[in-house]
């Protein structure tokens, strides 16, 4: 059904349609509306989940860990500081091979305290064993949650999925979205049938101690399955298209790339801004295209290589800082192109930190500076503030 709803409401409805058995979350801006809406849906009897109120994000993730271990489908959502507090449990969930979904609402990290958007928080969890999907708009984030459960619970994967959505830009924005019916979602996403679960009649031990003679093999298995999950992400995107008629890319998506000389790589809602900007620049004769990175973990190096080779210049937008190093996303893009003799130069712009608006002016600045060969610069920086310090 076509509805005009807030991004958070869309996520709540999508999660409800996935019939989670247990939801546990701790409210934190800008994730709050998602869990408020789910709590309301639960209180009204519209969904039949056990909604567990907890005293922290660490507990929320722990409740979900136990719920999945006991064979239930579980859901949580958090952001920023809450995600950092969850981190210890999140590594455990992945290590114990428990498939679940959380919404990682993207917000900057303290200090300084900021509630506004960038992608520093979820990027900090990139090595945790969680698969990460980044959504461009409210329809995509709604659809991604339904896909995420199917990916996570696939026998070939058995890893949790974090659906990342930009705080405020998506969570608090009203957009028309198609909300599928329960019958449609039930047909696409069967009930969770765990391969193993805690059961006194068929006992298992999860998360046990592993000595040096075994730990490495366990990490190897996670890595092997995470890399192989790329095929599942693609497969599920195709299945979703057949079931719901919507396609927003699988691991990547492209926009006006065919004859493009310059390619921009970005994740999340900024891709929407980029598309409008590219349309304007195209009218002026600038051959610019966009490669949207939709699935950051597993990292689609092959697909990116194929999409980026042939361009004269690649520009990576990064809404985070790898403090003291050369970036988070850009080195991975460069590594994907490293063996190629005709690899285009890759330039990086750090932008949109702590909710700083990324507008056409910012993008014009990035285009001009990257074209002039600058790399690793902060776009939209208020020089007068920096120089005064």
């Amino acid at each position, binding site marked *: 059904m076509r509805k005009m709803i807030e991004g958070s409401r869309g996520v709540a409805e999508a999660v409800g349609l996935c019939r989670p058995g247990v939801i546990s979350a701790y409210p934190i801006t800008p994730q709050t509306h998602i869990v408020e809406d789910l709590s309301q849906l639960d209180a009204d009897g519209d969904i039949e989940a056990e909604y567990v109120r907890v005293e922290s994000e660490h507990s929320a993730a722990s409740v979900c860990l136990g719920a999945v271990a006991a064979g239930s489908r579980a859901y949580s959502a958090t952001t920023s500081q809450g995600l950092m507090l969850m981190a210890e449990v999140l590594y455990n969930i992945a290590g114990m091979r428990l498939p679940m979904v959380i919404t990682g609402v993207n917000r900057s990290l303290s200090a300084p305290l900021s509630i506004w958007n960038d992608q520093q928080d979820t990027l900090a969890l990139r090595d945790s064993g969680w698969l990460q999907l980044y959504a461009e708009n409210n329809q995509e984030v709604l659809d991604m949650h339904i896909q995420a459960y199917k990916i996570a619970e696939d026998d070939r994967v058995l890893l949790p999925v974090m659906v990342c959505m930009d705080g405020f830009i998506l969570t608090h924005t009203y957009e028309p979205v198609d909300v599928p019916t329960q019958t449609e979602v039930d047909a696409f996403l069967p009930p969770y049938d765990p391969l193993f679960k805690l059961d006194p009649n*068929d006992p298992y031990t999860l998360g046990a101690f*592993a000595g040096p003679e075994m730990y490495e093999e366990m990490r190897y298995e996670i890595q092997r399955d995470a890399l192989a999950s790329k095929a599942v992400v693609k497969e599920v995107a195709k299945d979703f298209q057949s079931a719901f008629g919507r396609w927003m890319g699988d691991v990547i998506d492209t926009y006006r790339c065919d004859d493009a000389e310059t390619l921009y790589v970005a994740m999340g809602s900024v891709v929407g801004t980029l598309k409008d900007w590219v349309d304007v620049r195209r009218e002026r004769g600038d051959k610019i295209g966009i490669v949207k990175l939709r699935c950051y973990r597993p990292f689609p190096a092959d697909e990116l290589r194929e999409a980026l080779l042939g361009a004269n210049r690649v520009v990576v937008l990064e809404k985070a800082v790898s403090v003291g190093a050369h970036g988070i996303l850009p080195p991975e893009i460069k590594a994907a192109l490293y063996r190629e003799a005709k690899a285009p130069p890759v330039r990086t712009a750090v932008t949109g930190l702590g909710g700083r608006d990324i507008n056409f002016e910012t993008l014009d600045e990035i285009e001009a500076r990257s074209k002039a060969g600058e790399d690793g610069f902060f776009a939209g920086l208020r020089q007068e503030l920096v120089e005064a310090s």
Partner: protein
Amino acid sequence: MTASTKKERRKPPLGIVTQPGSSLRNKTGPWGILRPVFDWEKCRGCNTCEMICPEGCIRHLEKKQYEADPEYCKGCGMCAAACPFDAIVMEEEHR
């Protein structure tokens, strides 16, 4: 879904212990360097050592006769500390 068809789906990932009794297979004896030595003159057969052993490896053979299984005893010394009659001394084991 039955257990056999689940096995056909995939082998459980490593680290998931599917059979009980793994602590029997995991021999912890080589961890320690100390071993309890009993003084049968002092021992009154009260069972404190057997009950307090966190590894559950002290066996009561007969009245006033105990044995710490060297395959599992980590030499933690809790039995010696708890013995009301100071009948257990921890001694270095040379292997």
